[in-house]
C-alpha cells in the first residue's frame, strides 16, 4: 500500500504543477495500452521484420507481455506477469476458453497472423471492458477489407525457416463490391523439431497447423452494416517438449455475426452487437513418448455461446461506452488411464467436471475532456458469474474433497477504474486508480487432480475460493522531443485473496512421480509491480537505437516470491534500415533470477545475455507485387533458457528464414 500512497501523492503534486499552464494542443492519449501491429496485408511486408512470424513471436514484442514457453508452439501470454486466469483474451471482443487443463492451448494458439490486424494489450482494469480481469486484457483484432478499395485482391505467401524446417504457405482472396465484401484466407505451417543453440535438437517440438478464415460484410445503407466471420483452426501433431504429453489435435471453430448501426443526429454514435459461438476440441497424446509410466488419454472440450452489445456515444465533453456482455461456456475434460494389465478396468476421471460458466455483466465508461490537454476516464462494471457442475459424476468426485459442496455457485464481480490523462507538447502522463475482481478459473475452482509438470504437484480445485480483488495504481509518463522518445509505465497491483496452490501433505498424489497434492487456496494478498522503461532515438535517419528495460516484482503476503516473475530484463538494439536492407543487432538478456520462487518449483536461473543479430533484405519485383525477405535470427547460435521457459526448455538457436509474398 505504501507504494500506492506514494504514487497518489506524486499524482496530486504533479497535477497542481501542470494545471497552471493550459495550452491548446491536439490531445493524444498515452494509454496503458500497447498495440502490436500484426498485418494489414499492405503494411505487412513493409513494416515487419519477419512478416510470417507466428502470432506468439509478434506478441513477444510487447513490454507488458511475457510468453511462457512449453515448446515451439502455443506460448502462453502473461500480462503484467499474470497468467491467463487473471487476464482476459478475446478475439474481436469474443470470449473463448481453451479446452486444455494444462494450458497447452491459450486462445492465441487458435488464430493465425493472416486473421489479424493487431493485438491490443490493455493493462489492468483498462481491459475490463472485455470482461472481469486483474492483470489486463489482450484483444486480437481481425483484419478485414474496407469499402475504400473495390475489386478483387489477394496474395499468396510462403515461408521457410531453416532451423525447424518450418514450411509456411498462405493465400488470401478478397472481393470488395459497392456494399458487400468477402475475405478469405488460408495458412498452413508444418515444422519439425527445432534446434537450440549448438545444434541441440529439442525432441517433441514439432507442430502442424492449418488455419482458414472468412469474413463477409454487407452494408445495408450508409449506417447499417452486418458482418459474419468464421475461423477454423486445426493443429495436429504438436509437440510440447517441456511437458510429459503432446497434442494430437487442437481444433477450433470460431464464428460470429455482428450488426452495426450508426445513428444520425443522436447521442448514441454507434450501436454494435455481436452474437458468437465457438467450440474447441483438444486431445492430448502420449503415445509417441518413450517410457510412459502409464498411458493416458486426456481430451478436453470447451464450447462458448456469447453476445455483446456496445453503445458508443457523446454528450458535450463526455464520450461514453455502455456495454452488455454475456457468455455461456461449457468446459469438460477427461482423463482415461490404461493399466498395463489389459484385463483390468480402465481408470477414468473427470478433470473438469462439465462446468458451466454463465456470465452476464454491464460495463460503463465515460471520458470527460477537461480541455485539449487533459481528460478523465471513469469506468465501472458489474457482472454475475455463475458456475454449475453439470455432471453428477464430476460433482460426486469433488465432493470427496468438499462433502457439502453444491453444484452451482453464483458470484458478483465488480470493477471501478479511473484514469487521468494529460499531455502537452512533448510531455505526457497518465495516472490511474482502479479496483477489480475476478472469479476463480475452472481449474482453480473445479479442477480434479491436474498435474503441473513445473512444480510436479497434482492440483485440486477449491469451489470455496473467494473472488480475487485487486487494487491497482498505474502511472505512465512520456517525453517525446524530436530527438528521442522515452516513456516509463508502471503498474502496481495489490491483490487480495490471491489464488495459488498450497501443498496438502495429508493427500496422496495421483500422478506417478508427483511430489504431492496442492489445493488451490488463497494468500491474504500478493503484490505485483511491472515497470517498463522505453527509450529510443534516431542516430541518423536510417539508424535507430531502441531500448527497453522491464522490472517486475511479485511477492505474496507470506513473503515468498510468486512464480513466473521476470528478473530485471533488458533489450537494447540498433536497427538499421536502408531502402530494402534492414538489420538489427541487439543485446537481450536478464539479470540473475534472484526473485525466483522455490516454493512454487522454480529453480534459480542464471543471468543471460545473447547477442541477437538479424538481417533481412526485401526484394521487390514486378512493381512491388512480389517481394522476398530473408533474414537470420540468433546469428551467434546462443543456447539459453529464461525464467519463462517451462522446465528450462532451451530456446531456438540460429535460424535463417525466407518469406515470399505475391500480392494482386
Amino acid at each position, binding site marked *: 500500500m505504501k507504494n500506492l500512497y506514494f504514487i497518489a501523492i506524486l499524482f496530486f503534486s504533479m497535477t497542481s504543477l501542470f494545471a497552471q499552464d493550459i495550452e491548446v494542443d491536439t490531445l493524444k492519449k498515452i494509454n496503458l495500452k500497447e498495440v502490436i501491429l500484426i498485418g494489414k496485408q499492405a503494411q505487412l511486408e513493409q513494416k515487419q521484420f519477419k512478416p510470417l512470424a507466428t502470432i506468439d513471436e509478434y506478441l513477444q514484442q510487447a513490454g507488458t507481455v511475457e510468453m511462457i514457453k512449453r515448446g515451439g508452439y502455443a506460448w502462453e501470454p502473461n500480462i503484467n506477469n499474470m497468467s491467463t486466469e487473471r487476464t482476459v483474451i478475446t478475439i474481436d471482443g469474443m470470449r473463448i476458453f481453451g479446452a486444455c487443463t494444462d494450458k497447452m492451448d491459450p486462445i492465441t494458439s487458435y488464430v493465425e497472423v493472416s486473421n489479424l490486424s493487431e493485438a491490443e494489450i490493455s493493462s489492468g482494469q483498462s481491459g475490463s471492458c472485455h470482461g472481469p480481469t486483474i492483470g489486463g486484457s489482450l484483444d486480437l483484432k481481425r483484419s478485414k477489407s474496407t469499402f475504400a478499395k473495390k475489386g478483387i485482391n489477394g496474395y499468396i505467401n510462403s515461408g521457410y525457416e531453416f532451423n525447424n524446417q518450418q514450411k509456411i504457405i498462405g493465400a488470401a482472396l478478397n472481393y470488395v463490391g459497392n456494399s458487400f465484401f468477402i475475405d478469405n484466407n488460408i495458412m498452413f505451417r508444418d515444422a519439425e523439431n527445432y534446434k537450440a543453440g549448438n545444434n541441440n535438437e529439442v525432441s517433441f517440438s514439432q507442430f502442424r497447423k492449418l488455419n482458414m478464415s472468412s469474413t463477409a460484410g454487407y452494408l445495408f445503407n450508409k449506417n447499417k452494416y452486418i458482418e459474419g466471420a468464421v475461423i477454423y483452426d486445426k493443429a495436429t501433431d504438436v509437440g510440447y517438449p517441456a511437458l510429459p504429453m503432446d497434442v494430437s489435435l487442437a481444433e477450433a471453430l470460431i464464428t460470429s455475426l455482428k450488426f452495426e448501426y450508426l445513428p444520425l443526429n443522436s447521442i448514441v454514435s454507434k450501436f454494435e452487437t455481436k452474437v458468437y459461438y465457438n467450440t474447441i476440441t483438444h486431445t492430448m497424446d502420449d503415445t509417441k513418448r518413450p517410457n510412459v*509410466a*502409464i498411458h493416458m488419454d486426456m481430451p478436453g472440450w470447451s464450447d462458448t455461446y456469447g453476445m455483446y452489445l456496445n453503445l458508443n456515444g457523446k454528450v458535450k465533453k463526455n464520450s461514453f461506452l455502455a456495454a452488455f456482455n454475456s457468455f455461456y461456456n461449457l468446459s469438460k475434460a477427461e*482423463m482415461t*488411464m490404461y*493399466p*498395463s*494389465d489389459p484385463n*483390468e*478396468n*480402465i*481408470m*477414468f*476421471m*473427470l478433470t473438469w467436471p462439465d462446468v458451466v460458466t454463465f456470465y452476464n455483466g454491464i460495463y460503463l465508461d465515460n471520458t470527460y475532456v477537461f480541455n485539449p490537454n487533459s481528460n478523465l476516464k471513469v469506468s465501472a462494471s458489474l457482472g454475475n458469474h455463475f458456475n454449475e457442475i453439470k455432471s453428477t*459424476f464430476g460433482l*460426486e*468426485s469433488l*465432493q*470427496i*474433497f468438499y*462433502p457439502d459442496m453444491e453444484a452451482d455457485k453464483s458470484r458478483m464481480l465488480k470493477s471501478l477504474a479511473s484514469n487521468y490523462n494529460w499531455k502537452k507538447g512533448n510531455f505526457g502522463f497518465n495516472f490511474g486508480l482502479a479496483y477489480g475482481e475476478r472469479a476463480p478459473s475452472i481449474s482453480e475452482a473445479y479442477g*480434479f*487432480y491436474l498435474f503441473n509438470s513445473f512444480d510436479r504437484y497434482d492440483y485440486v480445485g477449491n469451489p470455496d475460493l473467494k473472488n480475487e480483488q485487486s487494487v491497482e495504481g498505474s502511472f505512465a509518463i512520456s517525453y517525446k522531443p524530436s530527438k528521442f522518445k522515452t516513456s516509463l509505465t508502471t503498474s502496481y497491483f495489490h491483490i487480495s485473496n490471491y489464488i495459488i496452490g498450497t501443498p496438502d501433505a*495429508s*493427500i*496422496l*498424489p*495421483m*500422478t*506417478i*512421480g508427483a511430489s504431492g*497434492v496442492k489445493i488451490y487456496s488463497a494468500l491474504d494478498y500478493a503484490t505485483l509491480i511491472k515497470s517498463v522503461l522505453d527509450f529510443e532515438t534516431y542516430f541518423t535517419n536510417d539508424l535507430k537505437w531502441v531500448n527497453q528495460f522491464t522490472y517486475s516484482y511479485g511477492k505474496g503476503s507470506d513473503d515468498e516470491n510468486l512464480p513466473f516473475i521476470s528478473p530485471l530484463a533488458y533489450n537494447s538494439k540498433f536497427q538499421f534500415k536502408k531502402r530494402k536492407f534492414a538489420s538489427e543487432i541487439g543485446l537481450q538478456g536478464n539479470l540473475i533470477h534472484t526473485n525466483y520462487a522455490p516454493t512454487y518449483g522454480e529453480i534459480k536461473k542464471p543471468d543471460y545475455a545473447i547477442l541477437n543479430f538479424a538481417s533481412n533484405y526485401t526484394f521487390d519485383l514486378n512493381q512491388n507485387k512480389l517481394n522476398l525477405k530473408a533474414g537470420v535470427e540468433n546469428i551467434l547460435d546462443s543456447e539459453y533458457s529464461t525464467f519463462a521457459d517451462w522446465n528450462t526448455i532451451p530456446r531456438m538457436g540460429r535460424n535463417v528464414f525466407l518469406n515470399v509474398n505475391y500480392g494482386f
Partner: protein
Amino acid sequence: MKILKYTFLFLLGTMLSCSSDDDTTIEQIVTELDGLNKVQEIANDTHVIELYSSTGTLEQGFNGISLRIKNKTTNEYEKNATITWTPVMHMAMMMHSCPKSEIAKIASKETLYNGYIVFQMAQNDTEYWDLQVDYTIADVAYTATAVVNVPASAKQRVTSFTGSDNVRYVIAMIEPTTPKVATNDVTFGLYKMESMMSFPVVDNFKIKIDPRMPSMGNHGSPNNVDLTQSADKLYRGKLSLTMTGYWKINLQLLNNIDEVLKGETITETTTASSIYLELEF
C-alpha cells in the same frame, strides 16, 4: 429443476399409494420379488424352499439372501415360519460353518424371509458348501438341506486371518455394491471364529482402510473414514474412490484398545497390507 423433481416424486408417490389400495395377494407376492432373482430351490417332502439373491447367484463373500417356503400340498407360501439356517463347508478333513445373520421375515413382506451369509471361502473340486434350513410352522419342525453353489468371487470381497491375539477373524465387504467415483458409504461385517460352527459379530473394534490403486503407482485417496461399529452391529465408514478401475482396500484391524491385531500401514516400501479387500468398477 428441483420443483420438477419433487413434482415427479409426488406423482410417483400418489401412483404407488393408489395401486396399493386394490392389491391382491398374488400381485403382492409378485412384487415382493422385485429386484430379486432365484438362486435355487431346496426341497423336502413337504416344502420347497426358494432361495433368492439380487444377482440370482451366490459367491464367496457376503451374500444377502431372501427365501420363502412353499407348501407342496397347498402351493401356498408360508407366512408364519420360524427359521434358522446353517451353512456348512465340507472339507476333506473337517467341516466348518461361516458368519451369518438371523433369518427373519421382512416387516413389509408377506412371505419373504431375509438374512445374510458370509462364505469366507469358495468351493472347489473336492470341497463344497451346503445349507441346512430348519423351520417351524405351527409347532411342527421341519428341515431341508441342499448343496449350494459358491464359486470364488472375481475380486476379494472377504478375508479371514488370525490376529496377534490368536483369534481367527473374518472381514467381509457388504457395501458399496455399486461403487462410484465419489465418497462411498462403506459397510463391512467383522466376525470371529469362536468354534468351527460359531462366528459371532465382534463388537467395538475398528477397521482402518487405505484404498490404493496398484496399477497406477499405488496412489491412494483422501478423506476416507475408518470403520466403526454402528447400532446394527455392522461396521461403517467412508470410502473415497477418485477414479474408476481396480482398487485394493488395505485394512488394519484394531481392537477396542486400539491395538493393531493385523494389517500394516502402507508406506513406500510396504505397498500392501497383509489383509485387504478389492473393488473394481
